């Protein structure tokens, strides 16, 4: 332990901790901009400078505490230095804040406001640069960039892709892909992790809320919405509640208030995915064909395989993701059942994910004519925006259940949102179908949690079968390399591109950290444990769907509607 003074207050601190950590432990806040929990410390922005008793201005984020240190976090020199660096950033920034997606959610705006910046003594040298909105998922706006480097770090270290990086130097520095190309020309998977850590609006999801407002007021259109499992444990946070708040029924109520004709649950098609994918796995294991089988729910992962591991495309499950299974069934089964012309049916998804926008726009995802099965995908953040635009008081909403026929779901589907969830749901079903006896214990704890790669072993028809779960693309790469080299010992591998799985997706509320991910994961398993049915094959509505329409898993109709193929890219 060391003893130091912060603003004349004597504090004890663990050796090796930074001034910033110790100050925050003691309820003294120091403003930061480039610093982000879970990422390396770069000290790029110099906003967190403090004065020590040796007369130095040091960055609190990277300077460790020392015995006898006396730190001033608010000395006039400190405040002046912070103002200078902030004004310099603003001098090369599009400061039209009211016209910005991040207005009132922007860290630079908050910083400038807290520092009391009323005018900029440096004026402005900002020149308008081209905005890259040439893909369905994210928009890169260099006019808002403060070069903090968070997006670079996430893309390089967490995802292992490094599509964007610093270019040039000094005041000419920019953050962009090689040769300033569009993201759509690069190996970008549109996971959107960059957008979720950006302190400003330099990378954001492509906002499509206006399209949805328009159809909601088109009387000819029957507008239905599906909500992904991960949104019910994060929307509360977007609306100002504690991380991990479970808001399933308030969310349904809010969607009804927004004007959707029916509010359905993607969990239903998650159960369906397990039935189809489970049977696909059983068939592949029986025939020893294209093993290990790899999950296909995550569009970021699919793009990653198509771009970097085209030789492993056959290992991917042919099952569409739950979002796309929903879209295909909505435009066929649901339209027929309700007597609606599919052309008048508009399908919206609420997803924790920016890559889902890209997935919905894929050519293959169209079962009726050229119309997309899912017309518009909104992220959790966009849903929050719509709720705020409508002026709905989220905390005061009555609890409302999902509509049928896509409203009866199981705990197995609920856990799709967390890393390891698809695997656990599949194991619950596959083991009972193959072994023809109920599982003694439903919880497969070894595949849960934030470890990068997790393993489990189950007994299937007398054979021991090994499975693995990976999340983040840098971890997925390790697993994929083994498969490529023929060294993989697994039969089944689940991959989610984002840290923690969909609950940590690129479309989730700003400020998502591993700590908030843990909270959402805990809530996800709570949702599961409180469900009446906890295994996908016990979902009575799924049973009925097969009887009424699909006939049998992997049957003719399933193949047409619920399965897909992949394309080698680049």
């Amino acid at each position, binding site marked *: 332990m060391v003893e130091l003074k912060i603003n004349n207050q004597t504090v004890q601190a663990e050796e090796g901790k930074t001034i910033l950590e110790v100050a925050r432990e003691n309820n003294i806040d120091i403003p930061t901009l480039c610093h982000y929990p879970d990422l390396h410390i770069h000290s790029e922005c110099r906003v967190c400078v403090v004065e020590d008793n040796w007369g130095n201005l040091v960055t609190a984020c990277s300077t460790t505490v020392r015995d006898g240190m006396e730190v001033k976090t608010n000395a006039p020199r400190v405040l002046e230095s912070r103002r200078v660096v902030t004004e310099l950033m603003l001098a090369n920034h599009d400061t039209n804040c009211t016209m910005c997606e991040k207005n009132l959610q922007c860290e630079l705006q908050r910083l400038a406001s807290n520092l009391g910046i009323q005018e900029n003594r440096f004026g402005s040298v900002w020149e308008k640069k081209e905005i890259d909105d040439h893909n369905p998922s994210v928009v890169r706006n260099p006019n808002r960039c403060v070069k903090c480097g968070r997006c670079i770090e996430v893309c390089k270290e967490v995802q292992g892709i490094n599509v964007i990086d610093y*270019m040039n130097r000094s005041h000419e520095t920019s953050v962009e892909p090689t040769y300033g190309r569009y993201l759509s020309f690069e190996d970008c998977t549109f996971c959107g992790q960059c957008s979720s850590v950006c302190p400003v609006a330099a990378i954001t999801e492509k906002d499509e809320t206006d399209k949805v407002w328009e159809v909601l007021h088109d009387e000819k259109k029957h507008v239905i919405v599906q909500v992904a499992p991960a949104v019910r444990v994060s929307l509360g946070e977007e609306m100002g509640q504690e991380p991990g708040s479970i808001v399933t029924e308030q969310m349904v109520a809010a969607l009804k208030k927004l004007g959707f004709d029916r509010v359905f649950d993607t969990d239903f098609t998650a159960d369906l995915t397990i039935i189809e994918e489970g049977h696909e796995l059983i068939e592949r294991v029986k025939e020893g064909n294209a093993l290990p089988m790899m999950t296909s729910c995550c569009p970021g992962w699919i793009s990653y395989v198509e771009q970097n591991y085209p030789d492993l495309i056959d290992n991917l499950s042919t099952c569409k993701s739950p979002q796309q299974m929903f879209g295909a069934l909505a435009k066929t089964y649901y339209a027929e059942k309700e007597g609606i012309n599919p052309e008048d049916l508009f399908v919206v998804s609420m997803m924790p994910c920016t890559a889902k926008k890209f997935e919905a726009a894929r050519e293959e995802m169209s079962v009726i004519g050229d119309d997309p099965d899912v017309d518009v995908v909104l992220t959790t953040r966009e849903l929050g925006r719509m709720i705020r635009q409508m002026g709905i008081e989220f905390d005061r909403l009555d609890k409302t259940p999902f509509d049928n026929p896509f409203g009866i779901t199981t705990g197995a589907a609920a856990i799709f949102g967390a890393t390891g969830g698809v695997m656990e749901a599949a194991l619950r079903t596959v083991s009972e179908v193959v072994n023809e006896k109920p599982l003694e214990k439903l919880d497969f704890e070894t595949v849960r949690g934030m470890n990068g790669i997790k393993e489990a072993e189950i007994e299937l028809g007398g054979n021991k079968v090994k499975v693995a779960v990976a999340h983040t693309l840098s971890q997925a790469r390790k697993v994929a390399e083994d498969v490529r080299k023929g060294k993989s010992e697994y039969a089944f591998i689940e991959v989610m591109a984002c840290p923690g799985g969909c609950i940590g997706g690129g479309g989730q509320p700003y400020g998502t950290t591993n700590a908030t991910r843990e909270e959402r994961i805990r809530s996800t398993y709570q949702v599961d444990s409180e469900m009446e049915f906890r295994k996908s094959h016990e979902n009575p509505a799924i049973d009925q769907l097969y009887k009424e329409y699909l006939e049998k898993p992997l049957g003719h109709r399933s193949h047409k509607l619920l399965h897909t193929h992949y394309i080698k890219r680049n």
Partner: protein
Amino acid sequence: MSVLQNILKQNPKSEDYLIETLLSLQDAKDEPCISEEEIADIAEYYGISPTRVSSVASFYTLLSLRPRGKHVVQVCRDVPCYLNGSENILEAVKEALGCDIGETTADGLFTLEETSCLGNCDGSPSVRIGKKTYENLDSQKVKEIISGYREAK
């Protein structure tokens, strides 16, 4: 085997040798710049993204991603040179070359660039042409030096 492949083979296969590789490659070429294709090949060899390679290449003033003239004239713009009149040197060079910063002369012989410190502050103001550094310059001297290059071709 291409020039690039030869250079890559000279060092261990590690990203740590990226700058070395880029410098050797640029030296080995008639036109002192790194091309988009070379960026892609280097990235593939080291197993890193092309963005990473161009990030490194674009940071250092010794390296260029844009085609440049045969002789690259770099005028130091750091403080000691500035205090000793680098502004005048820059103007003289512009006049002698007939082009602005970042431009190449019509005959393809010279490209004019600014550079940060050349580590030659005791001889400021300094200018580097190709690999040679010239020091204690004034407007007249620098014009003569450029004439020398032009005559030698």
